[in-house]
């Protein structure tokens, strides 16, 4: 499981953000180390960030989330203090609160550093999409898909977290750009968060399209999962 570091100007802010994210984890979660405040006030201290990186160290890597600008400076400087880390340490531009919640959840689920970072960075999307509903979305750019299919969601919950993650995982490893469209929106199929923002429930028709060498395989994989109800049909 990856480790996580939170770098904030405020200890209270960092601790509250960690507590909020912990609410989402039931069972074992990732180590989340905090480096926050400096000299007893607001600020960041690169030596504290370094210590937090060491505390959260994991062979699976460490993801570092930061708040305002100088937290980024301190985190970058922390990488230079002492020998390079034996394991990957990745600084992410993810928003601190939303990103931390997404990161803790995905890390607890055993996702790798790359995936957790991607999910954390996409964590503003639900807010962006929900606030964008008041304004018309730009028309979808017509992309000449190599392969596409219209599919009906038959499982009870539609594209909720688990099916979205299944699709993202299945297409993530393929050499193809895969998109899912529903209700005038388009989501990158390799991002489970984007898929969730489609809000596609049972009975919704979605269009899966793909471009690239593995386009056919990608659409076939999504079709198979959708038609099988993401393994949820037997249970319902």
């Amino acid at each position, binding site marked *: 499981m990856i480790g996580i570091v939170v770098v904030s100007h405020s200890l209270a802010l960092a601790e509250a953000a960690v507590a909020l994210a912990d609410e989402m984890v039931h069972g074992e979660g990732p180590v989340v180390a905090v480096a926050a405040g*400096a000299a007893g006030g*607001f600020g960041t*201290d690169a030596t504290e960030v370094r210590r937090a990186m060491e505390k959260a160290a994991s062979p699976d890597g460490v993801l570092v989330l930061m708040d305002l*600008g100088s937290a980024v400076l*301190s985190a970058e400087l922390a990488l230079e203090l002492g020998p390079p880390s034996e394991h990957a340490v990745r600084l992410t531009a993810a928003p601190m609160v939303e990103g931390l919640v997404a990161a803790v959840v995905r890390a607890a689920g055993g996702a790798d550093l790359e995936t957790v970072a991607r999910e954390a960075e996409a964590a503003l999307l639900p807010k962006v999409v929900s606030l964008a509903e008041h304004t018309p979305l730009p028309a979808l750019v017509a992309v000449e898909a190599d392969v596409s299919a219209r599919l009906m969601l038959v499982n009870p919950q539609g594209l909720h977290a688990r099916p979205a993650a299944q699709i993202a995982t299945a297409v993530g490893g393929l050499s193809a750009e895969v998109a899912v469209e529903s209700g005038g929106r388009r989501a990158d199929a390799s991002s489970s968060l984007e898929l969730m923002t489609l809000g596609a429930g049972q009975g919704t028709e979605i269009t899966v399209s793909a471009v690239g060498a593995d386009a056919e395989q990608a659409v076939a994989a999504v079709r198979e999962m959708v038609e099988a109800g993401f393994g949820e049909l037997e249970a319902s």
Partner: protein
Amino acid sequence: MGSLSVVEAVTVDRLVAWLSAFRDAVHEHGAYLTELDSAIGDADHGANLIRGMDAVMAAVEPPPGNAGDLLKKVGMTLVTSVGGASGPLYGTFFLRAATAVGDATVLDGPALLTALRAGLEGIVARGKAEAGDKTMYDALAPAMGAFEEALASGVEPAVAARTAADAAAAGRDATEPMLALKGRASYLGERSVGHVDPGAASSALLLAALADTLES
């Protein structure tokens, strides 16, 4: 200010005197730095540097035996005690300068320039600032250029440092009409125009302290 030809090489003690002069300068001008920062930032630049330089002077007593150890101690102390963006930025400046001088105990003009340049390059790497972004770079970069040009013309380090300090002051003043593109001030957009950048102002104090120290 005494004879300009007294200092031909900079010893560790002389570097400590420079730091001490900078500490005095941030105390003297702390309110001014904070006032600049209250216009376009979070109003703590003066207080942060006072806290940082007080911690530095405590940490370098007794002074380490060589310039690299001294400057490294300065950098690490600033990193842990300043808090704001100037902590990692000034910290990086001194840490990179420390690496550049190594275990030298005396720096001649070119060695001093190399150290300062390495520090500036560290700030650029850290802050990604470019000329005209309204940052400390706008005071430090012209100062390094002036220092180098003066040394090349064959003058003493003290004279070169004064030329550099003057260039830093001009660079500081030139930040006033600039639109901030980096740091917290960039959130203000057009409202940052018409104020001198606090980091450029403290950088000018750092160079002025160097010139004063080498002239005394």
